[in-house]
């Protein structure tokens, strides 16, 4: 890892830690939201960037976990994060396992469409069913706590601290994961599937493992999202939501860990600023997406990597 990157991460970490001290509740929740999307984006990057699995149904796992958390709070009254967090991740993981088993039989566009189809089924299941709150979703009115009721996770600052901790844990975990033999194997699959098979790798099993881990992490993000907004509604299961996260990953840079986080930040801010500037912000966002994809190979991380003057070494082929 280059010195520049280390310095960058340290500076970013300091900034992140300073956020609550700035005293603006908005800033705190805003950064919380970006971090939640950063986890979500990085979980999708594990599929797309490290394993070559382009999914348009990734929001399903995010949504399932958010709904699981909301239902647990609304129907059972459990608002202890120590219970609802594992529960919701378990739900997302189980869903990812089933969807993965079904969709990984297909490849290429068929895989993209199969993931989209299954996610749309979940969308309609939730949307058309009163148990899930129908089109308006489930709004959790009670507050969430961590372990003991004295740690109020619905408080913006405490929630922020929790989300920062989780984000760091996810990043560190993934940094180890992608350097492990397992992570290297995924990169090999993405690079040359046929060759991996000839070396004796059981590709299907690795892809499924990758898909399920990605699903579990998306579930983690979904759980945190619910802590943030208290609302689980069908729009979080929509394929458009998946497409947006995919854009974050692409904007930031495929196959990197920091890229998708930067992408999440840029994407959220882009829409935010554009929608303030002009009513026709979709036009601007559309143009940015088209241009960035056509010309900005490797996303922001890639462009930064190519700009050697910045000191980001482009020598290392991977990571």
């Amino acid at each position, binding site marked *: 890892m280059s010195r520049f990157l280390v310095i960058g991460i340290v500076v970013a970490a300091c900034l992140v830690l300073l956020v609550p001290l700035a005293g*603006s509740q908005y800033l*705190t929740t805003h950064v919380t939201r970006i971090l939640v999307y950063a986890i979500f984006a990085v979980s999708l990057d594990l599929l797309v960037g490290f394993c070559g699995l382009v999914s348009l149904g990734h929001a399903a796992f995010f949504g399932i976990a958010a709904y699981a958390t909301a239902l647990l709070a609304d129907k059972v009254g459990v608002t202890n994060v120590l219970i609802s967090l594992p529960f919701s991740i378990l739900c997302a993981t189980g869903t990812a396992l089933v969807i993965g088993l079904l969709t990984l039989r297909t490849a290429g566009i068929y895989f993209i469409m199969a993931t989209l189809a299954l996610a749309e089924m979940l969308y*309609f299941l939730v*949307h058309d069913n009163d148990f899930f709150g129908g089109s308006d979703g489930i*709004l959790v009115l009670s507050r969430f706590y961590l372990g003991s009721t004295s740690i109020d996770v619905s408080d913006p*600052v405490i929630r922020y601290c929790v989300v920062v901790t989780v984000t760091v844990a996810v990043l560190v975990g993934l940094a180890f994961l992608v350097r492990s033999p397992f992570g290297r194997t995924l990169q090999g699959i993405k690079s040359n599937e046929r060759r991996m098979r000839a070396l004796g790798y059981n590709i299907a099993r690795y892809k499924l493992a990758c898909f399920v881990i990605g699903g579990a992490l998306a579930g983690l993000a979904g759980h945190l999202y619910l802590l943030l907004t208290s*609302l689980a509604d069908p*729009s979080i299961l929509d394929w458009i939501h998946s497409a947006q996260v995919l854009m974050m990953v692409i904007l930031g840079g495929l196959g990197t860990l920091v890229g998708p986080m930067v992408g999440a930040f840029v994407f959220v801010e882009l829409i935010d600023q554009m929608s303030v500037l002009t009513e026709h912000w979709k036009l601007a966002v559309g143009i940015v997406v088209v241009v960035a994809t056509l010309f900005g190979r490797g996303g922001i991380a890639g462009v930064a990597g190519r700009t050697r003057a910045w000191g980001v070494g482009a020598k290392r082929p991977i990571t």
Partner: protein
Amino acid sequence: MTKETMISRRAFNKAALALSAGSVTAATPLRFSLGAEALKIGLILPYSGVYANFGEGITAGLEFALKKRGGQIAGRPVQIVKGDDQLDPKVGSEVAQKIVTRDNVDLVIGTVGSNVLPVLQKIATDNNKLLIVPTAAGNATTREHCHPLVFRVSHSNWQMTAPAGPWLLKRGPKRVMTMGMNYATGKEEVNAFAEEFKRGGGTIVDQKWPGLKELDYQAYFADVLAQKPDAMFVFFAGSNAVEFVKQYAQAGLKSRVPLYGSAYLIDSTLLPAQGPAADGVITSGHYAPTLGNPANKKFVAEYKAATGRDADMNAMHGHDSLEVVALGLEKTKGDLSDKAALSKAVQSVRFESPRGPFRFSRARNPIQNIYAIEAKDGKLNVIETIQRDVEDPTEACKA
């Protein structure tokens, strides 16, 4: 939460906020003695997405009303901070968070989608802001979720269609089939009608719930012909309403099974696209631009003169939202710091709205007339008043 405990907690919350966040703005005294301090109104509406024209119409109506008041409310100049919720709760919660906590507006007006309203309401009330709801009509807002600082200017879903039940029975039809878009508003409006229709002795022969993403309703029409109901009562809105009304007429059903529905089926923004297919369709609602009362005639004429646009339900909602704020704040002399007094002042607002006499129920939903509106040659004509002073049931509201 009762008003008393809420008020006593207000000061505490404010202090806690100032302490925990060290926020400068939150700690600024909200005393009104500064006189010229601008009144900041957060306006959160869908300006993009399928209901964007709702957002536009409400904004136009609101700005018209503000202009008529010389840009001032209770002697304070008004600053409007707009936010586009895109009819998406994910976006809505972000925008609401920004406008309520960063821009620190004095009160919030919003929104249209009943899917976005819950997050908006949560953020507004968590931060002790007055919330005026210009359109979103979910029953729960002024029932289970009712709150002393949340006032709705439009109507509840129940209010829109329930009176049409007994009214339709009196007109003749005894066996009615219903159809409604499969989402909360569609279900609430259609079920309110169906319930009252059955209570009066009518029969609901079948209920259809087409999905939001469906384009083509033709497949349902064969069933309508087979079951031969006396009438059809429906809820559709936006482009789906255009599709439904056109397809219903094209299928030759309009002359066989008369079509009734909620006023969203044929509002004046949709009517040009529906064309002759809408002729003779009768809807129940709280407003039509052709209402003959003096307040409406004045509103329609002045609105047209000022904006060049034809008045519609959305413009009226925008107009009335601002009127409610203005009349309420005049009673408190522009002071929003005492939430109990503020709530009480707004609650007691009464005026002649373009839709007819306007006052709030105990649950802070309007008590208003519901009319039968017929589409004819590109116009919406009020053919009779279905029921005067309709009030949404308030039992579920404990606050």
